[in-house]
């Protein structure tokens, strides 16, 4: 990936009509700095790792295995995981397999509404390299071109056990402070935006702030 440097200045928001442009902020996202005191950062990371709120947005077939995960058989609540129906309160976005272009639009919207630190986990083969639908005209092949991904779980579908293993892995990553996908997104904002706009032909949303 040759990423463009982080550019300054207000966002163009040129997908919006003039009156809508007033409704949305054109401020650029800023990367998150860790807490100045290392111990605090460490503690907060530990807390973040143990309180993972998933956005209840099953974007593909992967959602079908989230049902067992969040119910009695596997009971991921034990691990500090719960589903939140609103992106504002969620910190983990699970991309449940393939994402169609139409869904990508909603995914970007939801992702940008999530408050950082936020993490993206891709389930299944489709976000990795297209999977089953590598030749479909409506599904993405490489999800990491559009949003930063922190973790991939392969499988079709990945079983709930793997999802749990994935949660453990994500926790580890967060605790070590390596889950910095959201920062990558901001640092390479132009690159991601260009990719998103390349596939979403009817871009009629603000560029970042909601």
């Amino acid at each position, binding site marked *: 990936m040759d990423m463009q440097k982080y550019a300054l200045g207000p966002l163009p928001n040129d997908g919006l009509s003039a009156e809508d442009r007033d409704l949305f902020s054109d401020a650029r996202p800023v990367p998150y700095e860790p807490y100045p005191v290392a111990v605090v950062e460490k503690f907060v990371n530990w807390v973040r790792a143990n309180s993972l709120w998933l956005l209840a947005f099953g974007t593909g077939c992967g959602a079908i295995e989230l049902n067992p995960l969040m119910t009695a058989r596997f009971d991921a609540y034990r691990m500090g995981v719960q589903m939140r129906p609103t992106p504002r309160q969620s910190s983990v976005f699970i991309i449940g397999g393939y994402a169609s272009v139409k869904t990508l639009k909603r995914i970007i919207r939801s992702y940008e509404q999530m408050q950082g630190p936020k993490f993206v986990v891709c389930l299944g*083969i489709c976000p990795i390299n297209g999977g089953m639908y590598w030749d479909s005209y409506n599904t993405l092949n490489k999800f990491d071109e559009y949003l930063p991904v922190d973790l991939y779980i392969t499988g079709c579908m990945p079983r709930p056990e793997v999802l749990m293993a994935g949660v453990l892995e994500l926790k580890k990553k967060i605790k070590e402070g390596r889950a910095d996908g959201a920062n990558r997104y901001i640092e390479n904002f132009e690159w991601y935006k260009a990719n998103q706009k390349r596939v979403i032909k009817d871009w009629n949303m603000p560029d970042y702030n909601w």
Partner: protein
Amino acid sequence: MSLKDLISPFYVWQRAFEKPYTQKRPIEDRPGAPRYRGFHMNSEECIGCGTCESICQNHAIDMVPVEGLEQRAGDSGLRPRFDYGRCCWCALCVDICTTRSLHLSNHYAWVTEDPDAFHFTAGTDAMPWNQNSLGYRRDDDYHLLVHDRVEMQALSAEESVAGFDEVMRGYTEEEAVLEADRCVECGICVATCPAHMAIPDYIRTVRKGDYEAGLRLLYETNPFSSTCGRICTHRCETVCVMGYQGDPIAIRWLKRAIVDRVPQEKYREILGDEVEENGKTVGVIGAGPGGMSAAYYLRRQGYAVTVYEAQARAGGMLRYGVPSYRLPDNQLDKDLEYIRSLGVEMRFNTQVGRDIPFTQLLDEHDALFLAVGLNQPSALRIAGEEHPRVLSGLRVLDDVASGKDPGVGKRVAVIGGGNVAMDAARVSRRLGAEVDVLYRRRIEDMPADPEEIRESQAEGCTLVPQAIPVEIRNASDSNQVTIVWGEAEMVADDKGGRPRPVLQEDRMHEETYDCIIAAIGQGGQIDFIPAEFRDRIEFKWNKFVPGDYQQTGLEKLFVGGDIANSRADAISAIEDGHHAARGIHRFLSGALDG
């Protein structure tokens, strides 16, 4: 609203006093089911045929070269590399795997942050699940391929032994399509075929019923398609991937199926008869498969080709060594006629060294291709072999081919286990003789084609394995001959070679026959090459050892066929001729260095 409807829901609390459904440690306690379709494993049986790649609808499999893999026949040296950003674990690759080397384990967890990491070569990369014993395997009763060969119509043993009619009747169109349909088109066979014929491609033309395209494909590498479609030693079939779980594809019969469906009149139309003369001449010594193959490819390139043949007709060993119930004369003529029709000049009854000096040829032509074959029967090297009733196998076959009666009598012993021995035996049967075939080793050690062995047995030849001839004596009747032979025990070779027969002195037999046919092999004859040239040519065991492109130390001389290779079959000779033609073309256009 009834009271029951108000009270009944509180039943929900009953669950609170029961054991939870929750699995305590799901990651550890729930391995995949014994049949789970988890991650791929590949065993050593894999030969890299790539069938898994062709069935994968996700294009998740790449065939990649693997370092340090030992090169063996029928193994492409490639191994499947899986992209777990594509694979959907449908396991069609497992179902279709021709060697059953590919399995799925019941391992299913792979989590990483690097999207580029999901590649691995099954079986050779160290993966955590390589030792798993459970996982999906194809059920024995479930097949996606057809494992049984379509049997070809053949004369019954009684019918066939009654005359010299062709035994194998050829496939009908439907049979050919069915048999061609079995092919997985992996192409492993191409390397093994001495002529490297485009086997999967021409099989596909059979399947599609496009015989003209098939014929064109055949002639790209083999101008003796009709012949090879009948008597080829089909080395390709020994490595055919379908042979791992069933019968190999009948590649030879499919080749024949193409040729059988194209009448000779159409050859020139289909294959073309245009030749652009280039003004250079090439001499070819020997009109056997090697020589005629070279003549064909050279003529195609525009060379004026003259073939010198000692016999009265072309075909060499194909004509004089292969009986017509295996290869009818008209089929051989079909091949030869087309080659001749391109303008190849034939000089029959012209034995080099006797009728025309070798040096003259060397001077007259820009290059020479020599493929005189092996026409000197090997000696038995036992006492009494000069007995007049000891005939050579080649002689017998030659006589029969030329329409002469070899006079084998009523009771015949054939010594040897090769194709010539089998042919001699079967010819003798057709001439009305009782036949015993004596062979030093076991039946499974016989170098003859299995089907020749099978058919000869079916036709009533008695195979006597582990029988070592010791002496030949005069019989009481001068028209007969007596052979003394001893039984042999197979003794394992200390050096790891194949087992050796050891004569058992105490178990000797004595039998009297009308004649004994010795068919234990042939040797070459190269005396016609003047000594001053011979010094520049490399020989081994009285055979040529050609260099690149079949060239010898004598630059203008290219050699091929049985006299220059160890495989001694028609298809190798054909390839030698073809390859020499390449070499001569390069040599004469200055592209061949050395």
